[in-house]
């Protein structure tokens, strides 16, 4: 979120659509998220030129091409690092990261957890389709154990990550989950994420009709109400027999973590919504503050004085 208040002209979703043809498969969940983001961006009240979308590689990482903002489709897994550079360099930019479950949690896992602990100003949209889409269907770190894919003909043997638990363990200040097909919920979560100062991680359950169709089937359609636990502050949640009152702003992440564990339980509904939303200093604000403090304390650096520093000596006349 930018701190600079610009008199932004009123924009519409259309202003945020680029001229590039959208190239996901028919029925891909990415379309719905793109639409939601395009519709939501005007609400930020920011100028288009002050918004930057950075992505890694994967189907979902094509996202920036379709938004008429500044953008970079970078390399696999590294978007959080690139976004860290952008956010640290420029206070006035609103930085978004778009990533997939492979991009963010497999090759990019380390950058993700470090961005979270540093709390750099960026909003991370993690499209979790529990599969590698772009490379045509291998299992991912969020695929369920036993999954049969191209690379696991007799079933995968990896225990999956729970992205919310992982983020909470990594000191995240904002963690949420939403789902591609629920435009209203998605938009509400996006709004909170964008408003948060620091790193916001939003896991978006996203259907890949080609390689992992129906991964979130139970969470859509008529049964959705039973299957989804929509988190709200004050909601009472029972996990393993213990009841918790949900408070996303609580500093200690234990209860939020407790709720995240519902996920592993096949008999429990899947929690969606905001798990955690706490204020703590951001990396880039502090980095800028250190520069500002240095300037305030001693004024702008004098390059000649720097070069002349240390033990110097002068030769007054040519010494031959």
């Amino acid at each position: 979120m930018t701190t600079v208040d610009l008199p932004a002209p009123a924009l519409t979703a259309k202003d945020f659509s680029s001229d590039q043809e959208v190239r996901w498969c028919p029925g891909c969940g990415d379309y719905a998220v793109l639409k939601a983001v395009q519709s939501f961006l005007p609400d930020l009240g920011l100028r288009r030129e002050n918004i930057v979308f950075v992505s890694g590689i994967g189907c979902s990482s094509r996202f920036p091409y379709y938004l008429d903002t500044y953008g970079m489709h970078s390399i696999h897994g590294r978007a959080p690092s690139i976004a860290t550079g952008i956010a640290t360099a420029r206070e006035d930019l609103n930085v978004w990261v778009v990533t997939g479950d492979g991009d963010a949690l497999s090759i990019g896992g380390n950058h993700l957890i470090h961005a979270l602990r540093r709390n750099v100003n960026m909003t991370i949209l993690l499209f979790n389709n529990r599969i590698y889409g772009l490379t045509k269907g291998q299992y991912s770190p969020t695929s369920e154990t036993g999954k049969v894919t191209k690379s696991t003909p007799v079933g995968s043997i990896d225990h999956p990550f729970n992205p919310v638990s992982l983020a909470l363990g990594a000191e995240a200040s904002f963690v949420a989950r939403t789902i591609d097909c629920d435009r209203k919920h998605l938009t509400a979560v996006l709004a909170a994420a964008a408003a948060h100062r620091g790193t916001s991680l939003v896991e978006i359950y996203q259907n890949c009709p080609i390689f992992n169709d129906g991964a979130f089937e139970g969470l859509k359609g008529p049964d959705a109400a039973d299957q989804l636990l929509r988190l709200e502050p004050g909601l009472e949640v029972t996990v393993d027999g213990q009841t918790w009152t949900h408070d996303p702003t609580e500093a200690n992440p234990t209860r939020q973590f407790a709720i995240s564990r519902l996920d592993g339980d096949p008999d429990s509904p899947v929690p969606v919504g905001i798990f955690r939303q706490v204020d703590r200093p951001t990396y880039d604000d502090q980095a800028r503050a250190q520069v500002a403090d240095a300037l305030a304390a001693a004024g702008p650096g004098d390059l000649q004085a720097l070069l002349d520093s240390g033990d110097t000596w002068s030769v007054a006349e040519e010494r031959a």
Partner: protein
Amino acid sequence: MSHPVTELDRVVIRFAGDSGDGMQLTGDRFTQEAAVFGNDLSTLPNFPAEIRAPQGTIPGVSSFQLHFASYDILTPGDRPDVLVAMNPAALKANTGDLPKGATVIVDTHDFTARNLTKVGYAANPLEDETLADFAVHAVDLTGMTVEAVKEFGLSRKDAARSKNMFALGLVSWLYGRDVAGTETYLAHKFATKPTIRDANVAALRAGWNFGETTETFAVSYVVKPAPAAPGRYRNITGNTALSYGLVAAGRLSGLPVLMGAYPITPASDILHELSKHKRFGVTTFQAEDEIAAIGAAVGASFAGTLGVTATSGPGVALKSEAMGLAVMTELPLVVVDVQRGGPSTGLPTKTEQSDLLQAMYGRNGEAPMPVIAPQSPGDCFAAAVEAARIAITYRTPVMLLSDGYLANGSEPWAIPSVADLPAIEPGFATAPNHSTTNAKGEPVEEFWPYLRDEETLARPWAIPGTAGLEHRIGGLEKGEGHGNISYDPANHDRMVRIRAEKVQRIADSLPPLEVDDPSGQADVLVIGWGSTYGPIGAACRRVRAAGHPIAQVHLRHVNPLPNDLGAILRRYDRVVCPEMNLGQLSRLLRAEYLVDVRPITTVRGLPFGAEALAHDLLTHVTRTAEALA
């Protein structure tokens, strides 16, 4: 002074002791004294990879060599005229390098039977014929230090710690050097620990007085100041000069600097130095790894900052993929590689030039990057500014190849006047650059991020925050001009060639090469790049002094190679290329010019010795003469 004083034109002195003995500091201070006195000088620190290698062992020896002279010199010297050895290990590790007649000052304190055995001395070398070829001064430096500082009530161990200052005082006396600068330095360094300060100063003075008052040394020496152009000077290491160069590049371009780095020997000091200069708009980001470090730098560049990353060989390997992204997105970026011994972890604290081919080719696909190299510690400043000029002007990642010798070695540096440094023009795009018509046939102004400058082939740099220039870039192939993704075969072929041509065009901006051939009679040309400049120059002097003409040319720009290089190489009957690798530049030159460039290679983790190199060059010169005769 009651002692006779002998004048010398040059001295090579090596301080050696345990890692914990403070030899680097002793060397630094003596260097400073020599510098302020006006000598030309060159230094070579040499330390183990361990933080504190086991005491009293040969691997634990840390040394600092200084060459100072009354004329301009080019190397830290091959063999020490004077060795100061603080223990048996230091003596054992270094005597092999001494020429006959060298002076050896030994602290006798640790020459116990146990310590001698530990390093493999069967008998006490101070008492047998081991050091017969040298002028040995065996003195109990430790004992005298403890004595000198006893008034401060330190423990014996703490008291003994000042022995390096005692040694420094003694050597300072030996060469008639003023220790006032060191006293000021100690006062500053130990401002909060007055006892330690006073003990060190006392030890320093005691050392000086020991030389002055005892008969241990028959003569003392004077090495007069070296010729020098008027101006302000300071002694500087390569890492400091390189850091200052990056700070200066920010100023000269008007850009903030963001440096992403992950610590690694011998590059970490660049991160340390830059982290001090926030007032210059320099932000340092210590990343979780080398990939994140370059990632942040690329992001910063996209955002309109000068992105910089600094590392050593293993880190460059990790950054390979991200450098490719910078090549494809054509963003300014300076990648500093302070080369060390390889492959793999190799010899982390030693020097080498073996990352040249990695710098050229260590990326997937055709991913050309300019490569430039400083030739001496002080030159790291100018090289860093030049790297930034190329990066910003041509919108390209640039590889700046320093090495361990440049990084930690030092030399007097004529401090440039900031006013004389040329500005670097970022030339941000501010307006659309392409006219077209929309579906309704109306004229529209667009921004095309890959529409190039005709001369440099640089693409426009439009930074976020610039209204109307919103655009997306990335690692997939770009369509010429508009920059949208393109899978078109012909476009790809064209773009690959354009990227190569852009880097090639940098050569048009380079000054002519200077060939050093004083007699104009040479048949043999010696070519080098980077830190071999000093040793090659010193070796050429020796060859010439022996009556044989020889020419030298040195490359700052390895990619692209200068336009005039081919003609120069062809002008000579033989071209020889000394390198601290197995012949990497030689390969590039042979491939480019089909000239039979002959490598002279050393991969010892140490710079070339001028003497040995002169010998090799002489062989080439005489062989060439024979062939021509």
